[in-house]
């Protein structure tokens, strides 16, 4: 689909002499892989179980609602599609931030991270608007099994996006003040992995919850 480039590992340095760490303070396991990155992938693997549980609970209960307060009456597909597009594009800006960090380009790293946080905020704002609209139409958290499972699933996802935004803004601040002591590119990449995970969870939610009719 696209060209593959080989980036010189300028930010990584020359690598450690042993399996414990390098001059930048990044620690490596006996496999030669970064402990931080191993930990992040393990965390994301465990998050699959969390969201798998929430999605399957919603799938079970999506038909358990009153006649006039179900998905068919509430969903605003054009609006949710726009939110999905915004979150999808935030994944692009995030990967561009990682790419800039690997080149050692702090200015563009901060720029792309800030745009990613902005797009994430737009998505969360859209979710707050959607929740408010549903609530005004009479869909409270305890109205039905459908509403409880829907708010729990999308609410958990929204909290994950919000945590991601906080991490992105903190990272911009830390890069500005030169507060990152280890491998800066790896820190950006780790937060990028979390952000992309939040995006792939939404890819599932958008199709399974919004597009497939109950």
């Amino acid at each position, binding site marked *: *689909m*696209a*060209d*593959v*480039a*080989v*980036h*010189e*590992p300028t930010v*990584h*340095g*020359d*690598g450690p002499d042993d399996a414990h760490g*390098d001059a930048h303070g*990044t620690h490596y396991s006996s*496999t*030669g*892989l*970064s402990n931080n*990155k*191993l930990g992040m*992938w*393990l965390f*994301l*693997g*465990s998050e*699959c*179980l969390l*969201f*798998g*549980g929430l*999605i*399957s609970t919603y*799938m*079970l209960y999506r038909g358990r609602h009153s006649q006039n307060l179900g998905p068919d009456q509430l969903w605003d*597909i*054009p609006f949710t*599609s726009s939110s*999905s*597009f915004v979150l*999808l*594009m935030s*994944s*692009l800006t*995030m*990967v*561009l931030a990682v*790419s800039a960090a690997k080149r050692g380009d702090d200015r563009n790293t901060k720029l792309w991270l800030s745009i990613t946080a902005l797009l994430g905020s737009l998505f969360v704002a859209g979710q707050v608007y959607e929740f408010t609209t549903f609530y005004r139409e009479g869909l409270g958290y305890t109205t039905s099994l459908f509403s409880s499972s829907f708010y729990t699933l999308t609410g958990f996802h929204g909290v994950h996006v919000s945590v991601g935004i906080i991490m992105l803004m903190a990272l911009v601040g830390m890069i500005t003040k030169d507060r990152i002591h280890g491998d800066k590119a*790896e820190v950006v990449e780790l937060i*990028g*992995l979390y952000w*992309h*995970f939040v*995006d*792939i969870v939404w*890819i599932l939610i958008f*199709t*399974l919850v919004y*597009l*497939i009719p109950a």
Partner: protein
Amino acid sequence: MTGDPAHDGTAADTHASPASHDSSHGLTDMGYVQVAVALAIITGLEVWASYTDWLGPAFLPILLVLMIVKFFSVVLFFMHLRFDSKIFSALFYAGLFLAVGVYIVALFTFHFFDG
């Protein structure tokens, strides 16, 4: 997955320098833009499919295939799993496939697929 022996996570490369493992490879920035454009087009197709009737019984499988394509495009290209060590892939896919397996069994238990 990459077919590149330097990234297959076998014992032969476990003592290589971390720089040879840790995402030193990836797409160019233009490559990432192309992936994002493809994702946007697929999202548009999904929305279009949800509004049209002529797909008939093929609607659900097509929608699920498009969802899976989007999912793995982000995982493989944006999350660099295509270019990184297979150990990272194993950690993530272990959680993913365990979750899919466990919850499909759970849904069967509750007769979700009985129609």
